[in-house]
């Protein structure tokens, strides 16, 4: 049976993620070795993650967010940066840690795992945003439940996915988690160091230009 365009989309965005999430160990294995993971799916998930972050900021109900600004302005590039940077940081951190300790996963695999783990979280977040507009303060827990449960599920699938793609034992994986966090911190540290150095360099050049201008 020839696949229509709608069929392909249904396959990539509905059947594959549900297949992976319903049997995570086999699913992530297939994702990696049977090449069922799709990079455009991952990109779409990241885009949706940005969208969900923006929507959380703007559309979460007052009873849950306690936030109300009549002309609420959010900086979309900033929100996107703050959502995507941690993802990049995690992928970089995890990949740098695992690639030197016999992890079998590539950066692409890590991205795929991240994206498929995001899938339920995104759905739950959108449901949570919707529900938060129909609850009072006392019922706010119903909405918060979706947010919290989404995050828990996300970490759960992320962990399993990483275990499968790197082919680690359980305890080795726990160590990997700690190492990844450490690696992320190191990257942040180096970046901050770099930023301050660049700033100093910039100040140096600016001062020289200023000096020259004063003299001429």
């Amino acid at each position: 049976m020839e696949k229509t365009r709608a069929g392909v989309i249904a396959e990539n965005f509905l059947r594959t993620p549900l297949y992976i999430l319903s049997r995570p160990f086999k699913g992530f294995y297939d994702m990696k070795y049977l090449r069922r993971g799709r990079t455009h799916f991952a990109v779409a998930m990241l885009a949706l993650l940005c969208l969900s972050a923006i929507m959380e900021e703007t559309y979460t109900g007052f009873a849950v967010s306690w936030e109300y600004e009549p002309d609420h302005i959010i900086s979309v590039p900033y929100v996107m940066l703050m959502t995507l940077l941690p993802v990049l940081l995690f992928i970089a951190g995890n990949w740098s840690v695992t690639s030197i300790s016999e992890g079998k996963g590539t950066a692409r695999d890590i991205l795929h795992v991240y994206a498929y783990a995001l899938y339920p979280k995104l759905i739950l977040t959108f449901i949570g945003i919707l529900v938060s507009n129909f609850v009072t303060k006392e019922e706010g827990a119903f909405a918060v439940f979706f947010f919290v449960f989404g995050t828990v599920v996300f970490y759960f699938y992320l962990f399993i996915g990483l275990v499968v793609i790197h082919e680690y034992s359980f305890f080795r994986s726990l160590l990997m988690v700690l190492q990844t966090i450490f690696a992320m911190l190191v990257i942040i540290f180096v970046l901050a160091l770099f930023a301050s150095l660049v700033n100093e360099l910039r100040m140096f050049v600016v001062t020289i230009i200023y000096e020259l201008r004063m003299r001429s």
Partner: protein
Amino acid sequence: MRRWIKTMALALFACLLTVLPVRAESYVYSFGGERFIFPAPSLPPYRHSRSYIASDFGAEDFSKLSGLAVGGGNVFISCGKQLIITDYAFKTQRIVTSVTEDGEEQELTDLAGIWAADDGRVYVCEPLRGRVLVFDENFEFESAFYKPEGMVLENVAYRPSKVAVDSVGRLYVVASNVYEGIVEINADGSFSRYFGQVKVVYTVMDLFWRAIQSAAQRATSMTWLPVNFSNLTIDGDGFVLATVAGENEEEPIRKLNAKGTNILRYPKDPDFVPMGDMWINSFGATVPAGPSILTSIDSTDYGVYFVFDAKRSHVFAYDEDGYLLFVFGGSGAGKGKFQNVSDMRIMGDKLVFLDKGSLSVEVFEMTEFGRAILAASEHQHNSDFTAAAGEWEKVIDYNPHFQYAYTGVGKALYHSGRTAEAEEYFKTGRNVDYFSLAFQKNRQRFIAGNFTWIFVGIIALTAAYAAYKAVRKWKRRERA
């Protein structure tokens, strides 16, 4: 062009700054974002009107200003050995320096807290002699309450420093070195009980260190004593309102019921406990750091109470529900600033402060802004929400950033059944509790009004889904 507009805007802003006199010194706490509270500048609710120095009253000096009471058309000020009595215009009526007890004339020693009772009697603490003096309405000495029989104190003298008297003549005395709470004395002078003790709070770490100490260490280490109250008053409903001395109290303002438990109302959100400043610096070499230390409290008949923070010299006003109404004051030597305030009382539209740092009695007058806020609170206390809403509208006109005013307007709308508008107002007032009430009503109304359509919709959707399933099943069978 752009620059020109900018300059104009700046000039306008500068003008605004000059018209608002004590702008930075009066503020109110606002909600900004998720449970984030910050001080938003507000108009002054009270403005400095006059200062009086000792010679204005014909008194000796003001270096020992201590207690203040207002009532029955008179102001009573205790200052060292003298009890100064003036009328509301601050014209001296009399200065009492001695009393005649049992035919024996006694020079007064340093006086402390005063209470002016509704029946015209005046109660004055005299700590060094361990008694509370009572004067009648003609300022003549009547009797004295000494340390009551049956009150056991170990090795410490009874030194009453603050006193309040309820409508049946019971005395509530805060005495230094007494850690059991407020001393309640019956009208006949007998000891009734200790009242409303502040509980000692210790952390797990404290207990841990205590546990590993040796007996000798334990004997020499500091004892854990509960803190005492710093001041007290009786509110319009006859309850004792007291401020707890010392920092880091969970509930520094207490409204004590007959059992001695705290029944002070405040919004459900724990961040809104009436406690003075909520936005504080924890460190500071030259500026005061840490939470407020409340030393004075006075209450109106309609539930609004004022507390004075001695640390930053600010006055805080709360309504009966524990919402912050305004903050003003500030420490300094300038006009409208305080140096070392020992007591504060409400006198009608005015607030009177005893400032023993600047050796003066400071009188503040209500502004129109403050009047609107307090009038609104009074109407609210009397459950006249419509009248309150009118005042709150005025407050919003004065200061559109005053969030609690929107809640006030919303309450009126809510009570008159206009819950949809009320919901918007509660939202603008960032009041989640009231918002939830209004929202629930609206939701209920919506569902009740559209029940038929919702029901039909659900049935239709279910039917459509069943039909879709049936068709697919039929098609599949066809294909097979």
